[in-house]
Protein backbone atom coordinates (compact mmCIF):
# COMPACT_ATOMS: atom_id res chain seq x y z
CA UNK A 1 0.00 0.00 0.00
CA UNK A 2 2.76 2.41 0.97
CA UNK A 3 4.65 1.55 -2.19
CA UNK A 4 1.52 2.26 -4.29
CA UNK A 5 1.11 5.61 -2.55
CA UNK A 6 4.67 6.54 -3.32
CA UNK A 7 4.21 5.56 -6.93
CA UNK A 8 1.31 7.98 -7.26
CA UNK A 9 3.67 10.70 -6.06
CA UNK A 10 6.04 10.17 -9.01
CA UNK A 11 4.73 13.09 -11.11
CA UNK A 12 5.58 15.44 -8.22
CA UNK A 13 9.05 13.92 -8.08
CA UNK A 14 9.61 14.49 -11.80
CA UNK A 15 8.29 18.04 -11.49
CA UNK A 16 10.66 18.74 -8.56
CA UNK A 17 13.56 17.34 -10.60
CA UNK A 18 12.64 19.54 -13.52
CA UNK A 19 12.30 22.63 -11.32
CA UNK A 20 15.59 22.09 -9.47
CA UNK A 21 17.26 25.43 -8.90
CA UNK A 22 20.64 26.26 -7.45
CA UNK A 23 21.99 29.55 -6.21
CA UNK A 24 20.26 31.53 -3.48
CA UNK A 25 21.83 34.97 -3.87
CA UNK A 26 21.81 37.15 -7.02
CA UNK A 27 25.22 37.90 -8.48
CA UNK A 28 26.94 40.17 -10.96
CA UNK A 29 30.21 39.47 -12.75
CA UNK A 30 32.74 42.15 -11.82
CA UNK A 31 35.92 40.71 -13.28
CA UNK A 32 36.92 38.21 -15.95
CA UNK A 33 40.21 36.67 -16.90
CA UNK A 34 40.21 33.84 -19.43
CA UNK A 35 37.41 31.57 -18.22
CA UNK A 36 37.61 32.77 -14.63
CA UNK A 37 34.87 35.07 -13.34
CA UNK A 38 34.73 36.98 -10.10
CA UNK A 39 31.13 37.00 -8.92
CA UNK A 40 29.86 39.71 -6.61
CA UNK A 41 26.90 38.79 -4.40
CA UNK A 42 24.20 41.44 -4.46
CA UNK A 43 22.15 42.06 -1.39
CA UNK A 44 20.03 44.65 0.33
CA UNK A 45 21.67 44.13 3.71
CA UNK A 46 23.55 47.10 5.08
CA UNK A 47 27.26 46.93 4.28
CA UNK A 48 28.97 46.86 7.65
CA UNK A 49 32.52 45.96 6.68
CA UNK A 50 34.91 47.48 4.21
CA UNK A 51 37.22 44.49 3.96
CA UNK A 52 35.92 42.36 1.10
CA UNK A 53 35.59 38.61 1.45
CA UNK A 54 36.31 36.30 -1.48
CA UNK A 55 35.49 32.59 -1.59
CA UNK A 56 37.96 30.32 -3.34
CA UNK A 57 36.58 26.90 -4.13
CA UNK A 58 38.33 23.77 -5.36
CA UNK A 59 39.00 23.14 -9.04
CA UNK A 60 36.71 20.08 -9.04
CA UNK A 61 32.94 20.72 -9.10
CA UNK A 62 31.34 24.15 -9.20
CA UNK A 63 31.54 26.83 -6.53
CA UNK A 64 27.81 27.39 -6.12
CA UNK A 65 27.82 24.72 -3.41
CA UNK A 66 28.61 27.66 -1.15
CA UNK A 67 25.30 29.26 -2.14
CA UNK A 68 23.21 26.22 -2.96
CA UNK A 69 19.76 27.13 -1.70
CA UNK A 70 18.12 29.47 0.83
CA UNK A 71 18.93 28.08 4.24
CA UNK A 72 21.82 26.07 2.81
CA UNK A 73 24.09 28.93 1.84
CA UNK A 74 27.37 29.89 3.45
CA UNK A 75 27.36 33.01 1.28
CA UNK A 76 24.05 34.22 2.71
CA UNK A 77 25.45 34.22 6.23
CA UNK A 78 28.26 36.56 5.29
CA UNK A 79 26.16 38.73 2.98
CA UNK A 80 23.48 39.22 5.65
CA UNK A 81 26.17 39.92 8.24
CA UNK A 82 27.20 42.90 6.12
CA UNK A 83 30.26 41.61 4.28
CA UNK A 84 31.06 42.61 0.70
CA UNK A 85 31.17 39.05 -0.61
CA UNK A 86 32.62 37.56 -3.79
CA UNK A 87 33.16 34.11 -5.25
CA UNK A 88 35.81 33.03 -7.73
CA UNK A 89 34.26 30.87 -10.45
CA UNK A 90 37.04 29.01 -12.26
CA UNK A 91 34.91 28.14 -15.25
CA UNK A 92 35.24 24.84 -17.09
CA UNK A 93 38.70 23.94 -18.44
CA UNK A 94 38.75 22.72 -22.00
CA UNK A 95 41.40 20.59 -23.67
CA UNK A 96 43.23 23.79 -24.55
CA UNK A 97 43.67 24.63 -20.86
CA UNK A 98 45.60 21.50 -20.06
CA UNK A 99 48.91 23.38 -19.83
CA UNK A 100 47.65 25.66 -17.05
CA UNK A 101 49.81 25.10 -13.99
CA UNK A 102 49.20 25.55 -10.29
CA UNK A 103 51.05 28.87 -10.50
CA UNK A 104 48.59 30.09 -13.15
CA UNK A 105 45.79 29.62 -10.64
CA UNK A 106 47.57 30.81 -7.50
CA UNK A 107 49.83 33.56 -8.84
CA UNK A 108 47.69 34.33 -11.86
CA UNK A 109 43.95 34.10 -11.38
CA UNK A 110 43.75 34.48 -7.60
CA UNK A 111 46.28 37.30 -7.55
CA UNK A 112 44.58 39.23 -10.36
CA UNK A 113 41.19 38.81 -8.70
CA UNK A 114 42.57 40.01 -5.38
CA UNK A 115 44.23 43.01 -7.02
CA UNK A 116 40.98 43.86 -8.74
CA UNK A 117 39.13 43.66 -5.43
CA UNK A 118 41.67 45.88 -3.71
CA UNK A 119 41.26 48.47 -6.44
CA UNK A 120 37.47 48.14 -6.59
CA UNK A 121 36.87 48.39 -2.84
CA UNK A 122 39.77 50.64 -1.87
CA UNK A 123 40.76 48.08 0.75
CA UNK A 124 44.46 47.28 0.92
CA UNK A 125 43.84 43.73 1.94
CA UNK A 126 41.08 41.18 1.46
CA UNK A 127 39.74 38.27 3.48
CA UNK A 128 39.82 34.89 1.81
CA UNK A 129 37.75 31.79 2.56
CA UNK A 130 39.12 28.72 0.81
CA UNK A 131 37.18 25.45 0.62
CA UNK A 132 38.85 22.09 0.11
CA UNK A 133 41.56 22.36 -2.58
CA UNK A 134 40.59 26.03 -2.83
CA UNK A 135 41.73 26.32 0.77
CA UNK A 136 45.05 24.75 -0.06
CA UNK A 137 45.53 27.20 -2.91
CA UNK A 138 44.41 30.08 -0.68
CA UNK A 139 47.01 29.08 1.89
CA UNK A 140 49.67 29.01 -0.84
CA UNK A 141 48.55 32.42 -2.08
CA UNK A 142 48.56 33.95 1.39
CA UNK A 143 52.06 32.61 2.04
CA UNK A 144 53.26 34.15 -1.22
CA UNK A 145 51.38 37.46 -0.78
CA UNK A 146 50.91 38.02 2.96
CA UNK A 147 50.64 41.77 2.40
CA UNK A 148 47.40 41.35 0.45
CA UNK A 149 45.43 39.09 2.82
CA UNK A 150 43.80 40.41 5.98
CA UNK A 151 42.13 37.22 7.23
CA UNK A 152 42.28 33.63 6.07
CA UNK A 153 39.52 31.09 6.67
CA UNK A 154 40.09 27.50 5.60
CA UNK A 155 37.18 25.11 5.26
CA UNK A 156 38.03 21.40 5.13
CA UNK A 157 41.28 22.28 3.40
CA UNK A 158 44.01 19.64 3.13
CA UNK A 159 47.53 20.83 3.87
CA UNK A 160 49.25 17.80 5.41
CA UNK A 161 49.10 14.49 3.63
CA UNK A 162 51.34 12.58 5.99
CA UNK A 163 48.47 10.38 7.24
CA UNK A 164 48.16 7.53 4.79
CA UNK A 165 45.53 5.36 6.41
CA UNK A 166 42.41 6.58 4.68
CA UNK A 167 41.12 5.37 1.34
CA UNK A 168 41.85 8.35 -0.90
CA UNK A 169 45.43 8.56 0.37
CA UNK A 170 45.95 4.90 -0.52
CA UNK A 171 44.54 5.37 -3.99
CA UNK A 172 46.66 8.46 -4.65
CA UNK A 173 49.90 6.88 -3.44
CA UNK A 174 52.66 7.14 -6.05
CA UNK A 175 53.02 3.33 -6.10
CA UNK A 176 49.38 2.96 -7.12
CA UNK A 177 48.52 6.07 -9.10
CA UNK A 178 50.77 7.25 -11.92
CA UNK A 179 49.54 10.79 -12.45
CA UNK A 180 52.04 11.38 -15.26
CA UNK A 181 50.52 8.60 -17.36
CA UNK A 182 47.00 9.88 -16.77
CA UNK A 183 47.76 13.46 -17.75
CA UNK A 184 50.02 12.53 -20.67
CA UNK A 185 47.15 10.53 -22.18
CA UNK A 186 44.10 12.57 -21.21
CA UNK A 187 45.48 16.09 -21.08
CA UNK A 188 43.13 17.16 -18.28
CA UNK A 189 42.09 15.06 -15.27
CA UNK A 190 38.79 13.65 -16.54
CA UNK A 191 35.65 14.75 -14.69
CA UNK A 192 34.18 11.23 -14.77
CA UNK A 193 37.23 9.72 -13.12
CA UNK A 194 37.17 12.29 -10.32
CA UNK A 195 33.42 11.92 -9.81
CA UNK A 196 33.64 8.13 -9.77
CA UNK A 197 36.46 8.18 -7.26
CA UNK A 198 34.60 10.46 -4.89
CA UNK A 199 31.49 8.28 -5.07
CA UNK A 200 33.45 5.16 -4.29
CA UNK A 201 34.95 6.64 -1.14
CA UNK A 202 31.57 5.87 0.47
CA UNK A 203 30.15 3.33 -1.92
CA UNK A 204 27.18 2.06 0.06
CA UNK A 205 26.07 5.47 1.34
CA UNK A 206 26.32 7.05 -2.11
CA UNK A 207 24.98 4.21 -4.23
CA UNK A 208 22.45 2.52 -1.94
CA UNK A 209 21.73 4.51 1.22
CA UNK A 210 21.03 7.71 -0.65
CA UNK A 211 18.28 6.10 -2.70
CA UNK A 212 16.72 4.36 0.28
CA UNK A 213 16.56 7.74 1.98
CA UNK A 214 15.07 9.23 -1.17
CA UNK A 215 12.36 6.56 -1.30
CA UNK A 216 11.41 7.19 2.32
CA UNK A 217 11.18 10.96 1.90
CA UNK A 218 9.94 11.41 -1.63
CA UNK A 219 6.58 12.77 -0.48
CA UNK A 220 8.26 15.73 1.22
CA UNK A 221 8.48 18.64 -1.24
CA UNK A 222 11.21 20.45 0.67
CA UNK A 223 13.26 17.25 0.76
CA UNK A 224 12.83 16.88 -3.01
CA UNK A 225 13.93 20.48 -3.67
CA UNK A 226 17.05 20.05 -1.56
CA UNK A 227 17.78 16.60 -2.95
CA UNK A 228 17.65 17.68 -6.58
CA UNK A 229 19.63 20.85 -5.93
CA UNK A 230 22.33 18.69 -4.36
CA UNK A 231 22.18 16.20 -7.21
CA UNK A 232 22.55 19.04 -9.70
CA UNK A 233 25.79 20.04 -8.03
CA UNK A 234 27.07 16.49 -7.52
CA UNK A 235 26.67 15.76 -11.21
CA UNK A 236 28.01 19.12 -12.39
CA UNK A 237 31.56 17.81 -12.63
CA UNK A 238 34.36 19.52 -14.43
CA UNK A 239 37.82 18.33 -15.44
CA UNK A 240 40.92 19.75 -13.76
CA UNK A 241 43.57 21.38 -15.92
CA UNK A 242 46.17 18.70 -16.54
CA UNK A 243 49.40 20.34 -15.42
CA UNK A 244 47.69 21.77 -12.34
CA UNK A 245 46.42 18.33 -11.41
CA UNK A 246 49.84 16.79 -12.00
CA UNK A 247 51.51 19.51 -9.92
CA UNK A 248 49.03 19.28 -7.07
CA UNK A 249 49.01 15.49 -6.87
CA UNK A 250 52.79 15.18 -6.99
CA UNK A 251 53.86 18.07 -4.79
CA UNK A 252 51.03 17.91 -2.28
CA UNK A 253 49.28 14.56 -2.16
CA UNK A 254 52.24 12.31 -2.93
CA UNK A 255 55.32 14.23 -1.74
CA UNK A 256 53.58 16.27 0.98
CA UNK A 257 55.77 19.27 0.26
CA UNK A 258 53.41 22.01 1.42
CA UNK A 259 53.56 21.32 5.15
CA UNK A 260 57.30 20.63 4.84
CA UNK A 261 57.91 24.06 3.35
CA UNK A 262 59.37 22.78 0.08
CA UNK A 263 56.38 23.25 -2.24
CA UNK A 264 57.28 25.36 -5.27
CA UNK A 265 54.75 27.53 -7.07
CA UNK A 266 55.85 29.74 -9.93
CA UNK A 267 59.52 29.38 -9.05
CA UNK A 268 58.94 30.44 -5.45
CA UNK A 269 58.92 28.29 -2.34
CA UNK A 270 55.69 28.38 -0.38
CA UNK A 271 56.60 28.97 3.26
CA UNK A 272 53.49 28.77 5.43
CA UNK A 273 55.32 30.60 8.22
CA UNK A 274 55.00 33.76 6.14
CA UNK A 275 51.27 33.67 6.90
CA UNK A 276 50.85 36.06 9.80
CA UNK A 277 47.25 37.18 9.37
CA UNK A 278 44.46 35.84 11.60
CA UNK A 279 43.56 32.30 10.64
CA UNK A 280 40.35 30.35 11.20
CA UNK A 281 40.67 26.68 10.36
CA UNK A 282 37.39 24.76 10.05
CA UNK A 283 37.79 20.99 9.96
CA UNK A 284 35.07 18.39 9.44
CA UNK A 285 34.99 15.52 11.95
CA UNK A 286 33.22 13.12 9.61
CA UNK A 287 35.08 14.06 6.45
CA UNK A 288 35.87 11.05 4.31
CA UNK A 289 37.59 13.20 1.67
CA UNK A 290 39.75 15.44 3.84
CA UNK A 291 40.14 13.92 7.32
CA UNK A 292 40.78 16.30 10.20
CA UNK A 293 44.37 15.14 10.34
CA UNK A 294 44.97 16.71 6.93
CA UNK A 295 43.55 20.11 7.91
CA UNK A 296 44.39 20.78 11.54
CA UNK A 297 48.21 20.80 11.26
CA UNK A 298 47.91 24.06 9.32
CA UNK A 299 47.56 26.09 12.50
CA UNK A 300 50.91 24.92 13.82
CA UNK A 301 52.63 25.59 10.51
CA UNK A 302 51.73 29.26 10.11
CA UNK A 303 53.40 32.29 11.65
CA UNK A 304 50.11 33.82 12.83
CA UNK A 305 49.57 34.45 16.51
CA UNK A 306 45.80 34.75 16.08
CA UNK A 307 44.90 31.17 15.16
CA UNK A 308 41.62 29.39 15.76
CA UNK A 309 40.65 25.84 14.85
CA UNK A 310 37.12 24.48 15.00
CA UNK A 311 36.37 20.81 14.47
CA UNK A 312 32.73 20.41 13.56
CA UNK A 313 30.64 17.21 13.49
CA UNK A 314 29.80 17.20 9.80
CA UNK A 315 31.01 15.70 6.55
CA UNK A 316 32.93 17.40 3.77
CA UNK A 317 29.85 18.79 2.02
CA UNK A 318 27.79 18.97 5.21
CA UNK A 319 30.10 21.73 6.43
CA UNK A 320 28.65 23.94 3.70
CA UNK A 321 25.06 22.73 3.23
CA UNK A 322 24.20 20.87 6.44
CA UNK A 323 21.49 22.31 8.66
CA UNK A 324 23.61 22.02 11.78
CA UNK A 325 26.49 23.88 10.14
CA UNK A 326 24.16 26.59 8.91
CA UNK A 327 22.69 27.10 12.38
CA UNK A 328 25.83 26.76 14.47
CA UNK A 329 29.09 26.95 12.53
CA UNK A 330 28.58 29.81 10.10
CA UNK A 331 27.23 32.36 12.59
CA UNK A 332 30.37 31.66 14.65
CA UNK A 333 32.58 32.11 11.59
CA UNK A 334 30.82 35.38 10.74
CA UNK A 335 31.39 36.69 14.26
CA UNK A 336 35.06 35.71 14.06
CA UNK A 337 35.51 37.56 10.79
CA UNK A 338 33.49 40.59 11.92
CA UNK A 339 35.89 41.20 14.82
CA UNK A 340 38.83 41.21 12.39
CA UNK A 341 37.44 43.24 9.49
CA UNK A 342 37.60 46.97 8.90
CA UNK A 343 34.24 48.67 9.43
CA UNK A 344 32.57 50.34 6.48
Amino acid at each position, binding site marked *: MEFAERLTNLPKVFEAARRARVGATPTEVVFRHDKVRLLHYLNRAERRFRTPLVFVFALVNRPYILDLRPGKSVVQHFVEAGFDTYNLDWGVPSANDRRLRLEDYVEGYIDRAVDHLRERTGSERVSILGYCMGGTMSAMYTALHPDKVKNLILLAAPVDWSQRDHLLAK*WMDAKVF*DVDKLIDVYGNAPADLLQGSFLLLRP*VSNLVGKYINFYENMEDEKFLEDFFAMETWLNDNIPVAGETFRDFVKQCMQQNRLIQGTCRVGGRTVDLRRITCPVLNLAAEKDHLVPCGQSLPFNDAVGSTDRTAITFPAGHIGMAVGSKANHELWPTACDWLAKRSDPA
Partner: protein
Amino acid sequence: MNTPSGGDSTVDAFSRFWTEAMSRAMGGGGWPSQSPPRDDLMRQMRQAFLDAWEHHCIELMSSEAFLELMRKSMDNALAFKGQMNQLLAKILEDSPIPSRDDTDSILQVLRSIEGRVLDRLDRLTERVDEIEERQDHAPARPPGPAKRKSK
Protein backbone atom coordinates in the same frame (compact mmCIF):
# COMPACT_ATOMS: atom_id res chain seq x y z
CA MET B 1 49.30 -12.31 8.00
CA ASN B 2 47.60 -15.45 6.65
CA THR B 3 46.61 -15.29 3.04
CA PRO B 4 44.30 -18.21 2.46
CA SER B 5 43.38 -19.40 -1.01
CA GLY B 6 40.88 -17.37 -3.04
CA GLY B 7 37.79 -19.39 -2.10
CA ASP B 8 38.62 -19.51 1.64
CA SER B 9 39.40 -15.79 1.79
CA THR B 10 36.06 -14.95 0.16
CA VAL B 11 34.21 -17.10 2.69
CA ASP B 12 36.22 -15.59 5.54
CA ALA B 13 35.52 -12.05 4.33
CA PHE B 14 31.81 -12.76 4.04
CA SER B 15 31.77 -14.40 7.49
CA ARG B 16 33.41 -11.36 9.03
CA PHE B 17 31.01 -9.01 7.26
CA TRP B 18 27.95 -11.02 8.28
CA THR B 19 29.08 -11.32 11.88
CA GLU B 20 29.70 -7.58 12.09
CA ALA B 21 26.40 -6.73 10.40
CA MET B 22 24.44 -8.96 12.79
CA SER B 23 26.31 -7.61 15.82
CA ARG B 24 25.59 -4.04 14.87
CA ALA B 25 21.97 -4.81 14.02
CA MET B 26 21.33 -6.59 17.33
CA GLY B 27 23.19 -3.91 19.24
CA GLY B 28 25.13 -6.69 20.85
CA GLY B 29 22.01 -7.68 22.84
CA GLY B 30 20.95 -10.99 21.31
CA TRP B 31 17.92 -11.85 19.21
CA PRO B 32 14.95 -9.43 18.85
CA SER B 33 11.85 -10.01 20.98
CA GLN B 34 8.82 -11.96 19.74
CA SER B 35 6.68 -8.83 19.24
CA PRO B 36 6.80 -7.22 15.76
CA PRO B 37 9.71 -4.76 15.55
CA ARG B 38 8.93 -1.07 15.37
CA ASP B 39 9.77 0.97 12.27
CA ASP B 40 12.65 2.77 13.94
CA LEU B 41 14.13 -0.50 15.13
CA MET B 42 13.93 -1.83 11.59
CA ARG B 43 15.63 1.31 10.33
CA GLN B 44 18.38 0.94 12.90
CA MET B 45 18.97 -2.64 11.88
CA ARG B 46 18.98 -1.68 8.24
CA GLN B 47 21.43 1.15 8.86
CA ALA B 48 23.67 -1.13 10.86
CA PHE B 49 23.67 -3.57 7.96
CA LEU B 50 24.52 -0.80 5.49
CA ASP B 51 27.28 0.53 7.77
CA ALA B 52 28.83 -2.91 8.05
CA TRP B 53 28.60 -3.39 4.30
CA GLU B 54 30.30 -0.03 3.69
CA HIS B 55 33.01 -0.78 6.21
CA HIS B 56 33.83 -4.00 4.43
CA CYS B 57 33.72 -2.41 0.99
CA ILE B 58 36.22 0.17 2.17
CA GLU B 59 38.37 -2.55 3.67
CA LEU B 60 38.31 -4.39 0.37
CA MET B 61 39.19 -1.29 -1.63
CA SER B 62 42.08 -0.57 0.74
CA SER B 63 43.57 -4.05 0.37
CA GLU B 64 46.86 -4.61 -1.44
CA ALA B 65 45.18 -6.91 -3.93
CA PHE B 66 42.60 -4.30 -4.88
CA LEU B 67 45.17 -1.53 -5.15
CA GLU B 68 47.29 -3.68 -7.42
CA LEU B 69 44.23 -4.51 -9.53
CA MET B 70 43.35 -0.83 -9.73
CA ARG B 71 46.88 0.07 -10.77
CA LYS B 72 46.97 -2.56 -13.52
CA SER B 73 43.48 -1.66 -14.79
CA MET B 74 44.40 1.96 -15.05
CA ASP B 75 47.70 1.17 -16.78
CA ASN B 76 45.89 -0.98 -19.34
CA ALA B 77 43.14 1.59 -19.90
CA LEU B 78 45.69 4.39 -20.33
CA ALA B 79 47.79 2.30 -22.71
CA PHE B 80 44.73 1.63 -24.85
CA LYS B 81 43.66 5.28 -24.79
CA GLY B 82 47.21 6.32 -25.65
CA GLN B 83 47.18 4.07 -28.70
CA MET B 84 43.82 5.46 -29.79
CA ASN B 85 45.21 9.00 -29.43
CA GLN B 86 48.21 8.09 -31.59
CA LEU B 87 46.01 6.52 -34.25
CA LEU B 88 43.77 9.57 -34.33
CA ALA B 89 46.77 11.90 -34.53
CA LYS B 90 48.11 9.88 -37.47
CA ILE B 91 44.78 10.08 -39.29
CA LEU B 92 44.57 13.82 -38.71
CA GLU B 93 48.17 14.25 -39.84
CA ASP B 94 47.28 12.67 -43.19
CA SER B 95 44.13 14.76 -43.57
CA PRO B 96 43.65 18.52 -44.02
CA ILE B 97 41.88 18.80 -40.65
CA PRO B 98 43.89 20.54 -37.90
CA SER B 99 44.71 18.32 -34.95
CA ARG B 100 44.68 19.12 -31.26
CA ASP B 101 48.46 19.58 -31.37
CA ASP B 102 48.03 22.22 -34.07
CA THR B 103 45.55 24.27 -32.06
CA ASP B 104 47.67 23.69 -28.99
CA SER B 105 50.70 25.24 -30.72
CA ILE B 106 48.70 28.29 -31.72
CA LEU B 107 47.40 28.70 -28.19
CA GLN B 108 50.89 28.42 -26.76
CA VAL B 109 52.08 31.19 -29.05
CA LEU B 110 49.12 33.36 -28.08
CA ARG B 111 49.67 32.74 -24.37
CA SER B 112 53.33 33.58 -24.73
CA ILE B 113 52.48 36.84 -26.50
CA GLU B 114 49.88 37.63 -23.86
CA GLY B 115 52.39 37.01 -21.09
CA ARG B 116 55.03 39.20 -22.69
CA VAL B 117 52.58 42.03 -23.37
CA LEU B 118 51.21 41.93 -19.83
CA ASP B 119 54.71 41.86 -18.33
CA ARG B 120 55.68 44.82 -20.47
CA LEU B 121 52.54 46.68 -19.40
CA ASP B 122 53.30 45.94 -15.75
CA ARG B 123 56.84 47.31 -16.15
CA LEU B 124 55.55 50.41 -17.92
CA THR B 125 52.99 50.98 -15.18
CA GLU B 126 55.73 50.69 -12.55
CA ARG B 127 57.86 53.26 -14.39
CA VAL B 128 54.94 55.67 -14.72
CA ASP B 129 54.20 55.25 -11.01
CA GLU B 130 57.86 55.98 -10.18
CA ILE B 131 57.87 59.09 -12.37
CA GLU B 132 54.64 60.35 -10.80
CA GLU B 133 55.99 59.73 -7.33
CA ARG B 134 59.18 61.64 -8.13
CA GLN B 135 57.13 64.53 -9.48
CA ASP B 136 54.98 64.57 -6.36
CA HIS B 137 58.07 64.71 -4.15
CA ALA B 138 60.02 67.19 -6.29
CA PRO B 139 60.56 70.54 -4.53
CA ALA B 140 58.17 73.28 -5.72
CA ARG B 141 59.73 75.73 -8.22
CA PRO B 142 60.06 79.31 -6.97
CA PRO B 143 57.79 81.71 -8.92
CA GLY B 144 59.58 83.44 -11.85
CA PRO B 145 59.74 87.26 -12.43
CA ALA B 146 56.37 88.82 -13.32
CA LYS B 147 55.94 89.34 -17.05
CA ARG B 148 55.61 92.96 -18.24
CA LYS B 149 52.56 93.68 -20.30
CA SER B 150 53.49 95.18 -23.70
CA LYS B 151 51.82 98.47 -24.58
